[in-house]
């Protein structure tokens, strides 16, 4: 963490989607608690990974940061400025500094516009005329993302999935942003193409010094891309740490289970291949469990977990900056290797 103001400072961020029902006078009968009290910072030029399973609120978080969604509660500060409820006008200059890359390279590009027009779009909207003209800038951008500048006049359907994702990256770079929110940018791509796009994003991040919020469900990809990683479960951050701490010394049982469930492409039959078997499914975010939200699937849960929500703190044995929300954090002694399994039945 830098000693100056962080680029992005999020505190208590909450988003509840109301559920309306009833006839003939619909009223609010409940809420999907998609995101519930997130605190995190992103420093200039830093890459923060957000991981978690579907429905944990990671995409909602991305959309809140970019202000595509209106937060229910909490505060978002960008470079010290409170933008939580900023209006259109005040957001305009900030919007050009925060850009987004989407998951689906087919749905996120207008099929009726040429690549040149798509990439120039953000410049048009913000009325920016770079030296030498927009077309020259677009050609530069195409070159940066590894596409042929001569393809300026082509349409998206003439490109493969990986190339389309590059176009999406070029569009995000057009306004020289300070922060890019990338929502599952490689998960729709073939394995051999994923690595190409990850390398491109890494190059962009390092050479242009752009901060990233990298949202993904693939723990291996996140490990490769992010300096810091936050693990989310059912709308809450359960653990956040520097990459090496999180992967080398996961303290939250959920982080541990998640890591142990990733199948690795090795043929070794070592104990590291054993898993923590999580039983059941993620509960509904409409009525999340009381206390710790992971307790219904946790093998260590006690009465305390049901009554008291564990705070996200630096638990004993954590390095500074490594925060865990658990009453009974895992320790290096209980599980010698981060990938070594615990048998849930034996522990219960």
């Amino acid at each position, binding site marked *: 963490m830098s000693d100056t103001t962080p680029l992005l400072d999020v505190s208590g961020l909450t988003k509840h989607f109301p559920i309306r029902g009833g006839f003939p006078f619909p009223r609010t009968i409940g809420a999907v608690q998609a995101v519930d009290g997130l605190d995190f910072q992103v420093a200039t030029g830093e890459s923060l990974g957000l991981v978690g*399973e*579907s429905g944990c609120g990671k995409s909602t978080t991305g959309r809140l940061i970019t202000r595509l969604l209106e937060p229910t509660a909490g505060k978002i500060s960008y470079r010290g400025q409170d933008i939580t409820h900023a209006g259109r006008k005040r957001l305009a200059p900030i919007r050009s500094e925060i850009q987004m890359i989407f998951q689906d390279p087919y749905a996120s590009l207008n099929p009726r516009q040429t690549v040149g027009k798509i990439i120039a779009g953000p410049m048009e909207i913000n009325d920016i005329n770079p030296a030498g003209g927009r077309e020259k800038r677009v050609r530069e951008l195409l070159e940066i993302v590894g596409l042929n500048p001569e393809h300026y006049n082509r349409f998206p359907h003439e490109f*493969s*999935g*990986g*190339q389309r994702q590059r176009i999406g990256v070029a569009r995000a770079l057009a306004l020289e942003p300070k922060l890019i929110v990338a929502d599952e940018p490689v998960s729709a791509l*073939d*394995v*051999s*193409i*994923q*690595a*190409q796009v*990850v*390398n491109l994003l*890494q*190059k962009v991040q390092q050479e242009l010094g752009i901060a990233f919020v990298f949202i993904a*469900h*693939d*723990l*291996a*990809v996140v*490990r*490769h891309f992010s300096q810091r990683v936050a693990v989310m479960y059912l709308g809450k951050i359960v653990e956040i740490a520097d*990459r090496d701490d999180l*992967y080398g010394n996961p303290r939250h049982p959920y982080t541990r*289970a*998640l*890591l142990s*469930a*990733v*199948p*690795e*492409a*090795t*043929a*070794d039959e070592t104990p590291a*291949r054993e*898993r923590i*078997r*999580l*039983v*059941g*499914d*993620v509960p509904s975010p409409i009525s999340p469990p009381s206390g710790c939200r992971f307790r219904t699937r946790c093998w260590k849960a006690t009465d305390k977990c049901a009554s008291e929500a564990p705070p996200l703190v630096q638990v004993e044995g954590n390095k500074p900056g490594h925060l865990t929300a658990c009453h009974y954090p895992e320790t290096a002694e209980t599980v010698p290797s981060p*990938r070594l399994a615990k048998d849930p039945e034996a522990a219960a």
Partner: protein
Amino acid sequence: MTSTDQQTFLSVRDLKVHFSTEDGVVKAVDGLSFDLAKGKTLGIVGESGSGKSVTNLTILGLHDRDRTAIDGEILLDGKDLLTSTERELERLRGNKMSMIFQDALASLSPYHTIGTQIGETYRKHTGASKKEARARAIEMLRRVGIPQPDMRVDDYPHQFSGGMRQRAMIAMALVCDPELLIADEPTTALDVTVQAQIMDLLKDLQQEFGTAIIFITHDLGVIADIADDVLVMYGGRCVERGTKEEVLRTPQHPYTLGLLSSMPSLEGPVDVPLNPIPGSPPSLLNPPSGCRFHPRCTFTEKVAGGLCSTEQPLLDLIDGRGSACHLSLEQRAEFFADVAASRHN
């Protein structure tokens, strides 16, 4: 293959599947052969458009017969499926061979309860009564680990979570105790913790019933977890075959090697760029000449006479292990060692 000692249950010989489209003929599968024994799992790996799904739709006879030209032989327990009539295939599907798909929600009917859908297959093949079919459906749901199966049997698919739908589909596929199960990316749409549950379930069920499984995936991690033998497909052809250990430890084809080294892992070095395979998968309307991987291969100039772009390499199999590449095995051992050194296993 490790399974030579066991009886071959499914045998595919020189299978060719060509579609005619408006733009020309798509050679989706171009000369594929493999064997599978009972109780074994064959993992088929490949990217989109490599022909892995088409192969399996053809085995089940689910292709469009008017537009597809098929050549070769598919023997299931000695019976040639390609010369079978639609009626004969109908008797086999769901009974002797079964399939589970990637998208469970799209594969289940939203208008019928889970119980009816599982029971339907059972009634059709065994002539059981509605009552018996319902009891069977409950038993199957219990076996795939759905809590309170006697209540959930009357639920509709939208009332199930993603993992439960996938379990229900597995229950439906296994209701008649099929001897062959084809699983086409069954875990791709699932979260890792649920994926782990489903794979454990498939392994348990296989142990119990001795089902032969074809597991199609693009994820080599999943292959490492579940497969006995592996077949790597590229551009409609098999480029490498062998046991899981052989293929993952000592890949022989540059494409397999490329796949393995382009994957980020939980243990390898960080802060170094990944090693992607350059370019993108070929179009099967107009596939590259010679070896279909040659435009993306980094070793083409090591082969004398530009053979890679002119001549199709043959799949050289000894005991079920081999690959289709013009490089000699000695050359590959030398060139691949450097790449393998940068990997971590």
